[in-house]
């Protein structure tokens, strides 16, 4: 009976693994293709790393330029939104005021506004302020994800017992000192997870990157979409670039896997 159960489990696992990975397999085989694109399932006739070389060194601008843009904007957004949302999340967590309670709910509503609604006004506002391009995009991402940061970090702060600060306050510390010296060090896992999610969302974002792009600030997501033009799909370059672009995210998430599940449970269950 146990054997049948095990076979059942491993079969399901195999199916799910194949389902999750097969597009990646196609990506890898197309990126290694030479003159002829791979024939369906198999690897291509001629294996070559030329596509990677082309995309990394020969194209102008090279892929690392776009990658760099994406990473910089995502990093700016995740740091900025963390800095802004941490104090607010702490206040929502510790304060007993009903007014702030209502405000927190309103933050949740903002998280739910469809982005397309804001796209035109943002485009107009950014043009008027002269903030098209990288600066504008980072600002927009910060703005879009701060409500997410507030929501998630409040959950983390709620997990930390208030008694810890109380004892510090009794000893004469100010609220602010208690926050900085006690709460923040304890919530490093939560901060890391929140920052990682904001980084992910900013990195993969496409619509605003497209709307606000200038020549110098094209992100990797826009660049990749550009390989799939109306007339032709440049499969080799596209898949080579795509594989390179996935690397930072894989590194980030495999490093964070330990934190991730714990983090989600703290945030989602309040």
């Amino acid at each position: 009976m146990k054997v049948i159960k095990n076979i059942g489990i491993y079969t399901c696992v195999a199916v799910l693994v194949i389902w999750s990975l097969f597009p990646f397999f196609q990506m890898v085989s197309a990126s290694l293709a030479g003159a002829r694109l791979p024939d369906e399932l198999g690897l291509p006739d001629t294996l070559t790393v030329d596509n990677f070389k082309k995309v990394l060194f020969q194209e102008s601008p090279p892929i690392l330029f776009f990658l760099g843009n994406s990473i910089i904007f995502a990093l700016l957004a995740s740091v900025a939104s963390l800095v802004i949302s941490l104090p607010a999340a702490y206040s929502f967590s510790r304060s007993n005021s009903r007014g702030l309670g209502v405000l927190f709910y309103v933050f949740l509503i903002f998280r739910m506004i469809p982005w397309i609604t804001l796209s035109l006004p943002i485009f107009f506002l950014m043009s008027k302020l002269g903030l098209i391009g990288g600066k504008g995009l980072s600002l927009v991402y910060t703005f879009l994800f701060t409500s997410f940061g507030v929501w998630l970090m409040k959950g983390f702060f709620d997990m930390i017992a208030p008694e810890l600060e109380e004892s510090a306050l009794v000893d004469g510390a100010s609220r602010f000192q208690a926050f900085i010296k006690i709460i923040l060090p304890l919530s490093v896992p939560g901060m890391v997870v929140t920052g990682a999610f904001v980084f992910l969302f900013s990195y993969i974002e496409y619509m605003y990157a497209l709307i606000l792009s200038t020549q110098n600030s094209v992100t990797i997501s826009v660049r990749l979409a550009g390989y799939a033009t109306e007339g032709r799909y440049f499969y080799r370059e596209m898949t080579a670039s795509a594989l390179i672009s996935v690397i930072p995210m894989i590194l980030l998430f495999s490093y964070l896997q330990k934190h991730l599940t714990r983090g989600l449970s703290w945030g989602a269950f309040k």
Partner: protein
Amino acid sequence: MEKRFYVIMCLPAILLVFVFMGYLLCHCFYLSFRAYSPLEGIDRFIGFGNYTRILKDKVFVEAILRNIVYALLVVGANLLLGMGMAILINKGFKGEKIVRMILIMPMVCMPTVAGAVWVMVYNQEFGVVNHFLSLLGLERQMFLGLSKYAFYAVILTDIWGWTPFMFLILLTGLQSLPREPFEAARIDGASSWRTFWCITLPLLKPVTAIAIIVKLIDTFRTFDYIWVMTSGGPGNSSQIISTVTYRIAFQHFRYGLGSAMSIIALLFGLLLFILFVKVRGK
């Protein structure tokens, strides 16, 4: 004294989000009541003109209906598949950590990348899907080129891409359930199906509800997959709210109309939020 401290701490976030958001919303609202097309030099107040025009426009109305279908199909599949994955991983087996990482990978892959790769996957000549069709003796199809298939092809891609999100949330939920009810059920001799249906599911309801609502709202925002794979085509067969709005606003430069469409999309979001509050209240 303390209250002042809290308020000050909140200020940057509140300023950034509320003020920014408030201004943007007002601007959007304002535009939606005007005909504004700078390229043609049009700029005048037309009251509800945009709204009536949109609600009478076949393409937009179809896009709304299609968006609803999109949302239901995607979230439904996310739920089923994600729950399956979560239960499987929760059972525990050798190598589960690696499998968990593998299952997350589609989410980590950019929608633009995933969309482009799935274009390859659906390709008539060398895509995987058609390869299997030909093995089964069926005719190869141009999935993204035919109006009857394109929309559903993108739905499948979306399911592939975002099920890991639902999976992670459900898995976390499963792993934080208390042991006692399950012990009691086991002692009483309940079958695993019964246990799942009568104990697991009801206990998971709060989290599942949140995940569903969040995901539903996300599908009304969705843009990337469809735009990269079909741009709303062929014809208008895969247009959804965000693609129609994008096309009108950023390709035809009719900003008044585009803003009105956005406001309608917002109303959907609000509707879903009210649902969210009601469900959470339970």
